[in-house]
Each structure stands twice: as C-alpha cells, then as structure tokens.
C-alpha cells in the first residue's frame, strides 16, 4: 500500500513501539509488563513496517530470520532454567546475584528471572513475526 501519511507515521511509530517494547520487558520485573507483552509490542512495530512497505523490506530490516529469533528465545529461556542446577535447586528456580551488596543494602540485584523474560520476549517476537510474514507472503 503506497501512502505518504502512513510511511511518514510509520518511521516515527516503529521506533516508538520498539523502545516501548524494551521498556515493558525490563519493567516487568516489579510492575505490570514482562517478556510476553514486550514481545507482542515489538512484533506490532514490525507488523506496521510490513504494512507500510513490504515483507521483503521488513525481512531485510530485521536482518535475522524470525524463526531463528524464536528458537534462540526458547534456548535462552531453557538455559535460564538450568542455572538453578548449579545451586542444587529444581528446574526454573530463580537465582539471584547481589553485586556490591553491603550491610543493609541490596546493591545491584541480578537474577536468572530476567534472563528467562528475555527468552520469552525473543520467542514471542520471533513467533508472531514468523506467522505474520508467512500470512503476508501468501496474499
């Protein structure tokens, strides 16, 4: 579809959607948000790009095949689950590392929960885009 209004708006909105998807992913730790909704918002950005331009343009903008992104996401999520094995906990138990932790201060908390969320994000992002690209190419 050729539309000057749509292509101009898309340039702004795609960047906005992708930034907001990362924001939703990182904030999901303590507040509403998380990997799933973040991945959906990110995929929405690329769907908008597909509509404004074409599937081949969107594929070259993404650089990586969305199927590979989805599989990478599932792999990262599984790896974050295995992390618990080193502490002797069951599969998918959250592991915490408090960097620079002092007396009465938590320092910089790092967790395997965030790694799992990043995996979910990539799996949803890649899965939805695989679906949409396939549907668009069929038409």
């Amino acid at each position, binding site marked *: 579809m050729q539309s000057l209004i*749509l292509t101009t*708006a898309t340039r702004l909105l795609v960047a*906005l959607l992708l930034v*907001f998807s990362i924001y*939703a992913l990182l904030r999901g730790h303590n507040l*509403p948000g998380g990997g799933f909704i973040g991945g959906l918002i990110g995929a929405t950005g690329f769907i*908008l790009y597909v509509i404004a331009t074409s599937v081949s343009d969107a594929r070259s903008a993404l650089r990586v095949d969305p199927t590979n992104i989805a599989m990478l996401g599932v792999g990262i999520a599984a790896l974050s689950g295995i992390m618990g094995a080193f502490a002797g906990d069951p599969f998918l138990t959250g592991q915490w590392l408090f960097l620079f932790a002092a007396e009465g201060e938590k320092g910089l908390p790092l967790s395997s929960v965030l790694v799992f969320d990043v995996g979910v994000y990539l799996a949803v992002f890649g899965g939805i885009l695989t679906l949409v690209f396939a549907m668009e190419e069929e038409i």
Partner: protein
Amino acid sequence: MTFLDYAVLLGFALVILGVALASIRLIKGPTLADRIVALDMMTVQLVAFAGLSALQSRNAAFLDVAVVLALVGFLATVCLARYLERRNAINREDRE
C-alpha cells in the same frame, strides 16, 4: 470528595456516553467505512477511559494500557483500511 473526583466521574459518564453512541454507529453504519471509523472512535475513548482510571486509582500502570491501546488501535485501523482498499480493488477487477 474533591473537585477532581467529580470531574473524573463526569469524564467517565461522558466517555461511556460516547462509547454508546459509537456502538450505535457500529451497528447501524450503512457502509464498512462507517463501522471502521466507529471502531477507531471506540478505541480512542478506551484510551481516555484508561487515563481516567489512572487518575481515579492513582495508579500509573493504567497509563501504559493507554499507550499500548493507542498504538495498537492505530495499527487496527490501518489494517482494516488496507482490507477495505484490497476488497474494492478485487471488486473493480470483477466488474471489468
């Protein structure tokens, strides 16, 4: 109750009235374009509703709902418009 609470309540009433009127257009709408515009209007009103909810509950999480709804609502309207354009093109080919 402060003045803000009354204003938020009035806002809720007006938004609900707007959704009701838009749904009448959605049901009656003689053409598909009317229905799409009605759906878009309902999305915008839901964004306003989420903003009012954020004010009433003093919870900023509703503002994220508003942002996502506004962005996805735009996408929905674009997709429906594209469908409409494609359908018209197919009809034109059939007639020729």
